[in-house]
């Protein structure tokens, strides 16, 4: 039987009150209850990374988190990356490098890469590849994504200097 409940969470810095169904995943809650459809669904089984979000400082596949578990959580999604009209360096570099073709994987890659760069401002090729291995892209062959992440890391390093 369906049970509805209210979940309050901080999504991209805004306190949000969502009415969710107990059977909803966090992905459903973000997309259907909060209207944040930037987070994408590719598999619902934790295998593609299209639904990546940062929850309480941890990168998660939101399709594997139940919506009620988000009570009180701090959640960052792709919609929170840009500050107003100021794109995040990752977003800028993805565009510059043509690191997206269809773009369905892009939100997941951006969020996962942001989480990586938050932890490791100067990752090696291998570190980027390991961190992003949970995100599938069927279009690009990954090279341009790798380059975009490195360039964005350099941008972030020079701006924080």
């Amino acid at each position, binding site marked *: 039987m369906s049970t509805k409940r209210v979940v309050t969470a901080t999504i991209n810095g805004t306190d949000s009150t969502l009415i969710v169904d107990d059977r909803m995943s966090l992905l459903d809650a973000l997309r259907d209850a909060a209207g944040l459809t930037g987070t994408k669904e590719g598999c619902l089984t934790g295998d593609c990374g299209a639904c990546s979000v940062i929850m309480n400082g941890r990168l998660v596949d939101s399709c594997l988190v139940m919506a009620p578990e988000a009570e009180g959580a701090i959640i960052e999604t792709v919609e929170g990356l840009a500050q107003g009209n100021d794109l995040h360096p990752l977003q800028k570099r993805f*565009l510059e490098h043509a690191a997206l073709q269809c773009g369905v994987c*892009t939100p997941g890659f951006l969020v996962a890469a942001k989480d990586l760069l938050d932890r490791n401002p100067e990752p090696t090729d291998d570190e980027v590849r390991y961190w992003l291995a949970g995100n599938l892209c069927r279009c690009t062959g990954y090279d341009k994504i790798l380059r975009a992440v490195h360039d964005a890391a350099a941008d972030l390093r020079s701006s924080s200097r």
Partner: protein
Amino acid sequence: MEKQTPGGRPYKVIGTRPIRHDGEDKVTGRAQSGADISFRDQLYGKVLRSPHPHARIVSIDASKALAMPGVEAVITGAELPQPHDRMFLSGEGGVENFRYVNDRVLASGKALFEGHPIAAVAAKDIWTAEEAVKAIEVTYEVLPAVTDVLKAMQPDAPLLHEEITTETLGEKKKESTNVCRHTQHKRGDVDQGFSAADVVIEREFTTSTVHQGYIEPHNATALYRSDGQITIWTSTQAPFWVRRDVAELLELPLSTIKVVPLEIGGGFGGKIAVYLEPLAVLLSKKTGKPVKLVMNRQEVFLATGPASSTATRIKIGVKKDGTITAAAAHLVYEAGAFPSNWAVMGSMCVLAPYKMETLLIDAFDVLTNTPKVMAYRAPSSPQAIFGVESVLDEIALELGMDPLELRMKNAVEEGDRRADGPKFPRIGLKETIQAAMDSEHYKSPAPSGPNQSRAVAVGFWFNAGLQSSATVGINMDGTASVVTGSVDIGGSRASMAMMAAEALGLKAEEVRPSVADTDAIGHTDVTGGSRTTFATGMAVYEACQDVLGQLKKRVATLWELPEEEIEFDGSAFQHADNGKDPMTVKELGAKLTATGGPVMGHSSVAPTGVGASFGVHIADVEVDPETGKVTVLRYTVVQDVGQAIHPSYVEGQMQGGAVQGIGWALNEEYVRNDEGKMMNPSFLDYRVPTMLDVPSIETILVEVPNPGHPYGVRGVGETPIVPPLGTLHNAIARAVGVRMRSLPMSPPKLSAALQAKGLEAIAAPTP
């Protein structure tokens, strides 16, 4: 050939790398795919699918489902109009019969593959819909299934369709069979050709079923209004074909249907056919509400079109100097549960890269209890060319010849004929092979550690033309808008804007490109066949010429000079010997109102000057002899891309295609159990390459302009998936001395083969 515009001027916009116009929406999460839209009163649909690969449907009882609170409608195959024979152009140019589209969308009589839709429900939420699907009672009489192509050809194989007999060279045989078509191409006396050869090698190959693996599952939302007007929102490669297919299936005029293409998360040929759209329409008709259906990943694997598994036999004869004297190809392709023409396509590709006096190709399309095969990037070419490239590699070793020399010696060029007849126009295979030979990668020492090696292979794709429409409007400030009917699956908005900018003397940023729904633009065929930049680009170019013609009249009015004396030089309108300052399109914008009003150009084209594309791939690999794991150390894609409009996206196509091919070669496959059920319908078990599995793919763009396009465009997207199969196969063979001849060369298969060969042999490979 000089790289320049038809007017002989160097390019200003083409060949540059502007930010794609739709990019911001895609990095901020604002872009909307079909799964992202919803309506307040919308219902959720779910499909009941056959658990059996082959079964007679004895009865369907939906009464329990219909009685559930929140369930608003159930439909079954009985709901569709009776199937009728009507041929149509599908996929990448093949002809198919609507009778079977009908049957594929909703089963009637028999379930022919695991996942075959049996019924669909609409309910107030997805959970209710899922429960309702479970409550539908279906009685099946399970029938023996056949999923292997060679077994399906046997006379005692279970028959999928009683009414199907083999069509050979246009003639129908009498007996029912699973072989729906036999195609043959012949040139000269192939036996004589082989007797003239010094070396003849014949080998057999198999490849497994693979899936396009786009990340976004299929979706469709439809609203059937009480006045009979229908709107369909969907992520598709072919909105006009969705409209045609739904109209045909439901026997409605095209004018009652509007298809709104939303952003699409990958397709690669797999999002051309309709699956959910007709169901959404029927469910909406019953309920009067918008109905949305979204597949899950398992449904995508089980019930949407993968690429054919194949069994092929390739025989090639050469002289001592490497000249091919004869080749024979025997190709068997999985069609899936309904008639297909993928073997026909394979027969047109298999020997396309090489000259030869004699050849014989026999190709068989074979029905199996598997989902109907659909287009997958250069459909049918990879499996066919895989065997040829492997045999050529053996021949090169046998002759002690450089494998690229061998290919160069036999490479087709302008004027040569493909096996199925057409003559090649200007093509760039030789230039591509030469560029591969000259590449730093090929010239560098091949990896020489244990179980390491380097190899190459060639690939080919025709590219398609078909039909496209575009409009170009000049804004009142002289900037422009471009509207086309081609869904943008990987950056085509940018290339359309760039071609318009080049034609009109504007900057790429001064042109705003968009993709229209089926009401707002003339008929435009599929985004596929690598045709969008070519054909829709041609429509954009022609629409710009229309605009320029109209603008010239305005300039003539302004200058009070005869039109014939005014010329557009790519940047501005000029008059040769009159003191007038040149006038740009930008400047004319503000003068439109005063000189007669708005200017808009239109064009609809069906271009014939399609340019085929060839590629050469180079791979360095290392094999772990214990686990059978293959590491790709270095990988280069060399390809004739005609003229690259936006080089970054051209490189992206080459890299992405190569990685899909690498996945096909090394890992991807449908694993089936004895009953014919798929054992790995998830991204966990159907392993597509991750960032860890592939190196950064290097690209070399060879630009041999296609004379059939004003800007020299040839399609680029599909060719790059073709060579990886042979390239990796040959590299593995040269590294460990085992020719697998069977894909995928996955760790368990490769390590078993190595064990069978004996570990001593591995230490000193003799390929």
